[in-house]
């Protein structure tokens, strides 16, 4: 029997480093109680959730510079996790603000309290996932976030396609987490441990059969690939993104992807690379399976399919769904490099991707509130009917394409630079070709907004001033970071160290 006192001390020490997550749990409980006690107030739980997220952010700020393994090496706190947790918290906060403006959610406002509570639950799951360093913990965290997101995807259950989206999401999710657990069990059988650090030590000191290791690695990556909608596991994405409420679509496309990428990077780095990290930022592979090529193949498949299918979409939400698959492909490109440059490129890209993608989805939501459609045809003349919104959407779409002078360009620049630095020229060429393809479908929307003659041009669309302010709170940084991006790059470079223990 292990020493009980030792375990207790480890627990007490870990709880002290678990404050942001604890804040979220308390917020979850308080919001739930408030939902029962104050049934009449519409937004109370929303405000509580916002307050909880801000508090969690402050507590997270106090963890700056901490490298810590806690809860019997289940969770890791490090700069890399902190960056990703900021992205998760920030996008949750933005999504809650978006939700205040959503007409489709307010049709069912008696259940709105549950909606905000579940968003907090999902945020909690993602925070755990970002810091997990044990395969069981990874699985549990993925389930925590998935179960909330299944319900959220079908939140407007009166709408048929939302229920359909939710059901599809559950079924795909169940299958992929089953596959992942299978991979985990093979990994456990091979190495005798679930802890990533122990697996790493075992791989470094023993000769392990290649085939089972490759298979178990692939099966585990399938679980992550489902979360980030990488290509062979992407089938749920278009239907779920189209059916779910727009706020949730935006949330899934940013926050849950961020958590998925974080855990994927941590898994690869902690498990398959030697712990002797050199100063030049190259990682040293353990064993002879070259994971670079596995991820690079995923990246090429993902972005090519995402971009080519996005070309044919006539529904804005569906188009953005495929575009988010393509963006996952660009990010996987940086993951496949697997050195410090690649990690910092992923971080930089994610920060900008959050701004532009959430912004684009918010505009789609505002337009669908007014016009009750998400057809790309309906955007004809939007540039004249509501000049401000038109300009903002143009900025977001140009940024998503990755053209200067927007933040998206800087993100892509760093991704391609990291790929070329690592010597994968062919991968960079495929990425650039894909960006060119993506130009077509993004600009198609801009053409619809400005260059089409329609009668309804004079029929102005009036949006509430506060909504327009929020759009520009996202659009202006997208422009500014395209020209002055040093702070984000420095922050990402500071955050790229994944703590691998000692």
């Amino acid at each position, binding site marked *: 029997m292990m020493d009980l006192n030792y375990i207790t001390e480890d627990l007490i020490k870990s709880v002290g480093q678990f404050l942001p997550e604890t804040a979220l749990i308390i917020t979850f409980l308080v919001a*739930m109680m408030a939902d029962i006690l104050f049934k009449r107030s519409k937004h109370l739980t929303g405000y509580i959730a916002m307050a909880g997220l801000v508090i969690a952010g402050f507590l997270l700020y106090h963890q700056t510079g901490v490298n810590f393994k806690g809860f019997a090496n289940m969770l890791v706190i490090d700069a890399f996790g902190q960056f990703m947790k900021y992205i998760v918290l920030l996008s949750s906060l933005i999504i809650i603000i978006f939700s205040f403006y959503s007409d489709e959610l307010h049709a069912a406002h008696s259940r709105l309290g549950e909606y905000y509570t579940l968003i907090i639950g999902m945020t909690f799951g993602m925070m755990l996932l970002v810091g997990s360093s044990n395969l069981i913990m990874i699985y549990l965290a993925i389930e925590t976030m998935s179960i909330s997101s299944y319900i959220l995807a079908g939140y407007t259950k009166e709408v048929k396609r939302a229920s359909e989206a939710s059901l599809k999401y559950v079924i795909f999710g169940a299958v992929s987490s089953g596959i992942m657990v299978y991979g985990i069990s093979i990994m456990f059988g091979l190495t005798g441990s679930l802890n990533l650090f122990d697996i790493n030590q075992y791989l470094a000191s023993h000769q392990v059969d290649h085939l089972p290791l490759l298979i178990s690695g692939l099966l585990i990556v399938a679980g992550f690939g489902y979360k980030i909608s990488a290509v062979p596991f992407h089938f749920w994405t278009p239907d779920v993104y189209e059916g779910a409420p727009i706020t949730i679509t935006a949330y899934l496309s940013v926050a849950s992807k961020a958590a998925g990428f974080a855990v994927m990077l941590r898994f690869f780095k902690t498990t398959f690379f030697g712990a002797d990290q050199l100063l030049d930022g190259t990682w040293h592979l353990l064993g002879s399976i070259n994971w670079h090529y596995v991820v690079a193949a995923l990246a090429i498949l993902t972005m090519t399919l995402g971009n080519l299918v996005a070309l044919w979409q006539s529904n804005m939400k569906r188009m953005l769904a495929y575009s988010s698959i393509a963006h996952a492909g660009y990010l996987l490109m940086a993951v496949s490099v697997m050195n410090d440059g690649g990690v910092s490129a992923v971080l930089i890209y994610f920060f900008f991707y959050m701004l532009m993608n959430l912004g684009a989805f918010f505009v789609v939501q505002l337009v669908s509130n007014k016009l009750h459609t998400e057809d790309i045809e309906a955007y004809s003349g939007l540039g004249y009917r509501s000049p401000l919104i038109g300009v903002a959407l143009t900025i977001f779409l140009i940024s998503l394409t990755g053209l200067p002078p927007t933040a998206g360009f800087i993100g892509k620049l760093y991704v391609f630079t990291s790929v070329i630095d690592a010597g994968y020229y062919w991968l960079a060429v495929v990425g650039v070709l894909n960006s060119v393809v993506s130009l077509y479908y993004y600009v198609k929307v801009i053409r619809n907004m400005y260059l089409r003659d329609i009668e309804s041009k004079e029929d102005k669309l009036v949006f509430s001033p506060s909504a327009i302010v929020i759009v520009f709170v996202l659009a202006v940084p997208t422009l500014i970071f395209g020209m002055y991006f040093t702070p984000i790059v420095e922050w990402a470079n500071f955050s790229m160290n994944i703590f691998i223990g000692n």
Partner: protein
Amino acid sequence: MVTEFGIILLYFILGFLFVGIALVMAALIRPSHPNPIKNSTYECGEIPIGEPWIRFNVRFYVIALVFLLFDVEVVFLLPWAIVFKQLGWFAFIEMIIFVVILLVGLAYVWGKGDLDWEKPKPYIAKLEDLVLGKKKQ
């Protein structure tokens, strides 16, 4: 020599044989006089009504889920009670927090009205309705 997994395989085989032989022997020895009443489904001595493939009320699942919540709680409480003396106040506070979180769940289910079991209201025809030929409501 058999390996450890080999022993498990033997155990499986023995298990199948044991059940198989018992059933076959019983079938050989017992008398067989089937009649319709004997062949009907056994439902605690009642006469079976309808098909078994009916839709169950969804409330059963809700109650089952709530039950599960407290079942798991007990599973965690038992080992806690064993080491409680060694761990002292820390473990006590920890368990209080755990139970409170579960209680909030119960309060939520209660507040949302999922514990109310709404009985169906069957329509019972009154004598005058039948006599006067009134329509069912």
